[in-house]
C-alpha cells in the first residue's frame, strides 16, 4: 500500500490538522514507511478470532444517575483560551 498526497491531505482534513504541501510530502514518506510495518498483519489468517478491544474482558460499569461533582466552572474556565459569561467563545458558526 502506498498513500497518495491527496490521501494524506484527506486524512489531515479528517484529523483537523492543517498541513502544507511540503509537509505533506515528508508526512507521506513517513506514513508509507509505517504502513509497510503495519502491513505485516495482513499475512495472518485471523478468521474466527474474537477481536480484543481491551485487556480486561469486562463490561462497562454503571453508576447511579446522581450528581457527584461540585460546580467548578470558574476553575475549569480559567484555563480556557477565551470565555465570556460562563461560555466558551469560538468563531461564529451560524450567520
Amino acid at each position, binding site marked *: 500500500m502506498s*498513500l497518495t498526497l491527496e*490521501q*494524506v491531505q484527506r*486524512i*489531515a*482534513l*479528517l*484529523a*483537523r*490538522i*492543517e*498541513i502544507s504541501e511540503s509537509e505533506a510530502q515528508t*508526512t507521506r514518506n*513517513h*506514513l508509507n*514507511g*509505517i*504502513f*509497510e*510495518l*503495519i*502491513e*505485516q*498483519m*495482513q499475512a*495472518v489468517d*485471523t478468521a474466527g*478470532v*474474537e*477481536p*480484543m*478491544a*481491551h*485487556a*480486561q474482558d*469486562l463490561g*462497562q*460499569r454503571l*453508576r447511579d444517575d446522581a450528581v457527584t461533582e461540585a460546580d*467548578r466552572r470558574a*476553575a*475549569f474556565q*480559567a*484555563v*480556557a*483560551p*477565551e470565555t465570556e459569561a460562563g461560555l*466558551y467563545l*469560538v*468563531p*461564529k*458558526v451560524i450567520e
Partner: protein
Amino acid sequence: MIAASLQELSQALGAKKISSVELSTLFLDRIERLNPVLNAFVTVDREKSLKMAREADARIATGTAGPLTGVPIAQKDIFCAEGWTTTCGSKMLANFISPYDATVIRKMHGEAGMVSLGKTNMDEFAMGSSNETSYFGPVRNPWDRERVPGGSSGGSAAAVAARLAPAATGTDTGGSIRQPAALCNLTGLKPTYGVVSRYGMIAFASSLDQGGPMARSAEDCALLLNTMVGFDERDSTSLDRPIEDYTRELGEKSGDKPLAGLRIGLPKEFFAAGCDDDVMAAVQAAIAEYEKLGAICVEVSLPNSHLSVPAYYVIAPAEASSNLSRFDGVRYGYRAPEYGSLDDMYMKTRAQGFGAEVKRRILIGAYVLSHGYYDAYYLQAQRIRRLIANDFIEAFKLCDVILGPTSPSTAFKLGEKAADPVQMYLSDIYTIAVNLAGLPGMSVPCGFAGELPVGLQLIGNYFDEARLLNVAHRYQQATDWHRRSPLGIE
C-alpha cells in the same frame, strides 16, 4: 542521603534524623544544579514542594505519618496536579495549569503525604522512545550525556538515575516505564492494566496506558505501588479488587536458594536474532544467576510476538486520534493566534500545537478508523491482539514468570533514530506485547555493555505483581547492578 532507599529515607524521617524540608531541599538543590544539563524536569516549584514538606513534617511530629510521608518524588508531567503546570511534553499544554489532581497525585500528596519535587520531561503525549519528541527539548542520559534516556518517561528515568529524586512516577503504553528504566539502570514496574487509576493521567491509548513506579530497587517499587493502586470510580476501567501489600513477599528468607522451584519461561522468540550481542550476554548472565537462586528455566513460545509492533501501531494511534481530538483550542491549552472559521481555528491550532510525531500518530489513527479501512486495519489488529494475549496464557501454563531483554539495545545516541519513525518504534519490540495483553512487566538492571546499563525484563501473569517484585528483589539481593550510579553522581 541521595543514595538511600525509600525504606531508609522513611526510617530517617521517622527517627527525626532529617526533616522532610531538609531532605526535599537537598534534592531541590541538586535539581537546580544538574537539571540545566540533563533537562529531566520541565517544572520545579520550590515553594510548593517545601509547603508539602512542612505539612509532612507536621504529620511526622504528630504521629499521623504513613510509611512514605515526607519522602520526595518526581512526577511525570502526564499526571495532572492541581496548581501545577501540566504539559504532557507538548506546546499544546505549555500554558495549562491543572485545576485538579490525578488520582495517583491525590493519593501520593494526600493519603501518603509524599512531597512532589516537580514535573518531569517526557516525549510529547508519551509518544516516543527517546524523549526527543518533547516540546521542551530532549533529556540527556546521566550515564552518557550524548545519549537518550529512553522514553517516554525519560525525564523520570534521568531524574532518578542522577539522584535528582529518590523515585518517580511513570506511565507505560508500549514500554514507556520499562525501556527508560533499562536505559538508565533503574527498576520500573508497569502494573496489570486496571490496577492503577488513569483518572487525571492524560490519555494516549486508553486500553493500554498504565501508571507505575520507577525507582532504584524492587523494594522501592513495591512501597510506591502500595500508594498508587486502588479502585477508582472516576476511571471506568479501574478494577475493584482487594487491596494487596506488594511488599509482602520481600521479607528475610533463609537459605541460598530463595527462588527454589520458581519456573522461569524463556520465550524463544526473545532470544532469536534482533537483539544486540552485548545486551544478550548480560541477559544470559542473569539467567545463570537465577538458576543459582534455585529457579528452573523452561523454554516457552510467544509465536505471534513479532506482530506486536504492527498491531500496536494500529491500535495505539487509533485510540490516540480519538483521545487527542479534545485538543481543539476551545476549553484548554493552546489556540492559534490567527484564524478564520471554526474549522480553520481547529486546523491551525492543532497544526501549531502538536509536534511531528504526535501528528503522524493522529493521522495513522484517523486513517485506520476511516470508512473502508476499519476492518482491514483496526479489526485485524484487535484480532492479532487476541492471538498475542492467548500466547501469554499458553506460556503461563508452563512457567510462573517470563524473562527476556527489555530493549534490544542500550541507550542510543541523541538524533540516531529521530529521523526514522520505524527504527524508533522497533526499540519497543520486547515490551509492547505486554501492554497489548494487559500483563504486569518490570525492567531490572542486569549488567552493562561497556559503560551503558542493560535491563532485564520480567513479565508476570495478571495481578502477579507481588511475585514479580519478589523475583526481582531476590536477584537484587544477590547482585549489585541496581546500586551502581553514573560517574560523578555519587
